[in-house]
């Protein structure tokens, strides 16, 4: 394969795997016979499948497989239960005392709440989520923020720290200069403060760990790959910090003093574990060794927090490392592997054999890198 371009090619097919290969049964005859349609009980699935009897082995295999998965996978219109004690959550509907699934996904039963979690959907915000968003619109006393959800989230002018300290009252002049704080296209990280009736999120950035994002690069992955955890900001080896938004938006930046102050030990360990359990976040738990303290909060929340200027000290090496991390995250997403800080660090170590960061965008390399991450994870898991 040339290093100029890598190509996956196939002749005579629309996609990589022929559709037929997805089916377990090999359909020697192309048409599905409807021969016994008139005299059969139409609800009887087995009878319907009966025409594939010439293929008994595969047929049996499939039907047993279906039996084992039926309890797990639900498809739209499928009866989940006729027991009325269940409360009906998302992904279900209720008709004549019976609960049906409205999406394709897996059943989740929490206490008495029954819901079906779809295989894939747009990000659904929950209170407390740490997200990364992009300003889509500036309107009356609020910003609308694209968070990859069904609707834009709302960030009220009153939910941000304004220059001049947190205790300052907001004034009319603030309303008029909202664009000088945040304007269309600006990226920020924030917390979901509450949800509106219709499911839209209301955000706030009233903590020093939230706010406008600088000094780095944005990348996006499917939101299902980000697992909610206590901490979504991680300092990584190589002087890089990652903000893993629950909504699948990710920000990679050069580690700043603030980031170092947040985590103990600073700089991020290459051990890759235990870090998320240490280091409570936010302004109150700043490391006493650092030169930022709560008394300087006011100073920190000056105009600087809305600056568009990047740190002039970002070196080429750091930029390379940021690109490397971005490619590792894309590789994990490509292989549909959940993205955690541990895996990113493992990926960083494993990626060192590729001295050329650009080679990590190739399919084969992405696959082998992901495999190595999973292997390394298994090894660590056994060691503990």
């Amino acid at each position, binding site marked *: 394969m040339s290093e100029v371009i890598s190509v*996956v090619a196939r002749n005579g097919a629309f996609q990589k795997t022929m559709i037929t290969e997805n089916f377990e049964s090999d359909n020697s005859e192309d048409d599905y016979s409807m021969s016994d349609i008139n005299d059969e009980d139409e609800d009887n699935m087995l009878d319907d499948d009966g025409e594939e009897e010439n293929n008994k082995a595969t047929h049996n295999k499939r039907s047993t497989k279906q039996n084992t998965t039926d309890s797990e996978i639900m498809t739209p219109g499928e009866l989940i239960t006729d027991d009325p004690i269940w409360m009906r959550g998302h992904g279900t509907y209720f008709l004549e005392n019976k609960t049906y699934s409205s999406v394709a996904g897996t059943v989740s039963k929490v206490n008495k709440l029954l819901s079906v979690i779809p295989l894939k959907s747009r990000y659904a915000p929950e209170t407390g989520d740490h997200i990364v968003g992009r300003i889509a619109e500036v309107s009356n006393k609020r910003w609308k923020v694209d968070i990859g959800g069904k609707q834009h989230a709302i960030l009220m002018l009153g939910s941000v720290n304004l220059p001049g300290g947190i205790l300052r009252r907001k004034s009319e002049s603030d309303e008029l200069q909202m664009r000088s704080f945040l304007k269309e296209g600006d990226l920020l990280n924030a917390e979901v403060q509450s949800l509106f009736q219709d499911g839209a999120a209301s955000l706030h950035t009233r903590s020093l760990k939230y706010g406008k994002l600088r000094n780095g690069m944005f990348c996006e992955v499917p939101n299902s790959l980000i697992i909610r955890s206590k901490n979504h900001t991680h300092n990584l080896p190589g002087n890089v910090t990652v903000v893993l938004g629950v909504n699948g938006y990710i920000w990679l930046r050069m580690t700043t003093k603030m980031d170092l102050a947040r985590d103990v030990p600073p700089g991020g360990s290459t051990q890759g574990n235990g870090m998320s359990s240490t280091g409570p976040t936010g302004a109150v738990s700043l490391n006493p060794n650092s030169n930022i303290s709560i008394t300087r909060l006011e100073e920190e929340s000056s105009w600087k927090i809305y600056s568009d200027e990047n740190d002039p000290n970002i070196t080429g090496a750091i930029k390379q490392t940021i690109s490397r991390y971005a490619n590792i995250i894309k590789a994990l997403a490509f292989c549909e592997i959940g993205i955690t800080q541990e895996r990113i660090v493992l990926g960083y170590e494993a990626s060192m054999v590729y001295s050329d960061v650009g080679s990590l965008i190739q399919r084969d390399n992405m696959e082998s890198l992901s495999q190595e991450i999973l292997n390394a994870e298994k090894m660590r898991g056994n060691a503990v």
Partner: protein
Amino acid sequence: MTLSVAEKSYLYDSLASIPSIRPDGRQQHQFRPIEIYTDFLPSSNGSSRIIASDGSECIVSVKAKVVDHTIDDDLLQIEIEISGERDDSLITESCTSLFNKLLKNIDMKKLQLTKKYSFKLFIDVLVISSNSNPVSLISFGIYSSLNCTLLPKLVSNFDDLEVEELPMFHDYDLVKLEVDSPLVFVLGIVQNNIFIDPAANESEVANNGLMISWINGRTIAPMRTFALNDTNTKGFSPKLMQEGIKLVEKYAPDIANALQNI
């Protein structure tokens, strides 16, 4: 795509630095990986589907028809449709006019059947989604669909000027169409750096874009500059143009090779 000011300046500084650092770590000459599927439409003579790693996708169909070239000498007709754009939108029209010019480089002799009749090729391009300028993807699509185009085999006489008969074809034998089709390369310019195949975020900060066409070992007209975004566009030194042409001449054969080996 709107980027924040901080993002833009980060990208711009990275791309402008020497050596330049691309956001995905690519080399100056490196393309993003693509997937190609060909010959999946049985009712077309040739078809292809190209997908870039960012999800940009383009489908091309080639259909042939026998025409009397003494009457209709326009043997190639191309129509481009970009999903989400009107047929008379700027981007659709500029793409169509570009490819109309480019396809003049295809050797029409290859389409001739007899002294009187020729195949006329209808090339339909459907861009299903595109995150950056689609011309490169379209040219790859046309290239690979022409590369897999099969035409009926002629069995009647080549010299039919005097005789009143229509060309006759073999019942099932097909011949492969052997034509060289042009490729278009998009290059992005940031300060004194030039790089091939700019991604969406690179396009957003590029000072200028360069479109270079190439066929069978040489660069050809049209070659044009175009703005990749509305905000950052500036002039550039002619030296960069030469560097761009050199880049294309050096690496285009690799691309053509990659597109052929299906």
